[in-house]
């Protein structure tokens, strides 16, 4: 079951990373976002970090283990936004 925030994040990922052939249904909330699963790369990670900062006011360390955990899949990302959003 996909929450409203998860759907919003799916759309943010698709728009920000210009995933022209991907629909929200294609993104499995439990599948990895990077390398495996959706197959995003390191440039996407930086771009996504910037989008989270712009949209939700969340500041992340670019290369921390913690950031890796937050970026693992859509559910961990949604949990991060729930916990840390300032806008």
């Amino acid at each position, binding site marked *: 079951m996909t929450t409203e925030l998860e759907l919003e994040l799916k759309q943010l990922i698709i728009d920000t*990373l*210009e*995933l*022209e*052939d991907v629909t929200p249904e294609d993104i499995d909330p439990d599948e990895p976002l990077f390398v495996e699963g959706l*197959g*995003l*790369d390191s*440039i*996407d990670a*930086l*771009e996504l970090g*910037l989008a989270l*900062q*712009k949209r939700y006011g969340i500041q992340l360390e670019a290369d921390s283990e913690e950031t890796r955990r937050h970026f693992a899949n859509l559910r961990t990302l949604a949990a991060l936004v729930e916990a840390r959003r300032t806008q």
Partner: protein
Amino acid sequence: MNSPSLHLQDWRAWLPDGDAGGDTRIATDTRPGGRSLPAMLRRRVNLAGRAVADLLAELDPDADSILLHASRHGDGERTLELLYALAEDAPLSPARFGLSVHNAVLGVYSIASGNRRSLQAIAAGGDELAALFSEARGYLAEGAPQVIAVFSDVPVPPRFADHAPASRGAAALAMRLSLDNGRAIHESPWQGGGDPPQPVDVIAWLRDGGELGSPLRGRAWTLAP
């Protein structure tokens, strides 16, 4: 001393919404498919970049040729977006930054195709065709059996159009060149004037023949039948 003469083995072109005159070497689709690139790479390049990748996939099927890519303005849209962001103190997009460099298109193509030969990106202030021929001659003289020379441009963004020569339209072309195989490209001194050749002019020359001159270099090229 005579410089070694170039020969044209084969070519492909992208002339969006243009007149191919029945020539199957010219693709005229408004949006090139970019099918030679996986979707995750395709999204990173502009329309000319997609077209270039498709042209190269046809001329370099074994991904084993030296590649030259000339463009007067490159991806001006992306570069200028970055400058706007800087001017407004906004954070820079890492993806745009990574792909704003002049060798971005060949870089993306080489990742997708596995081509590990020399890649060279050229901007020559309007004299791109002459620069491509010069560079190609150099690689061929050093022993490369063939070189693929690509020339592409899209109009600069409207806000900057007054500061650049009028574009005759987005287009891209790729030529496979060698020293002794194919149609000879004769070079001769030339006194003509006007604008330097843009990609659309080179495509017309490839399709229809005749003489194509560079006012900056004072040279003209004629393609043997």
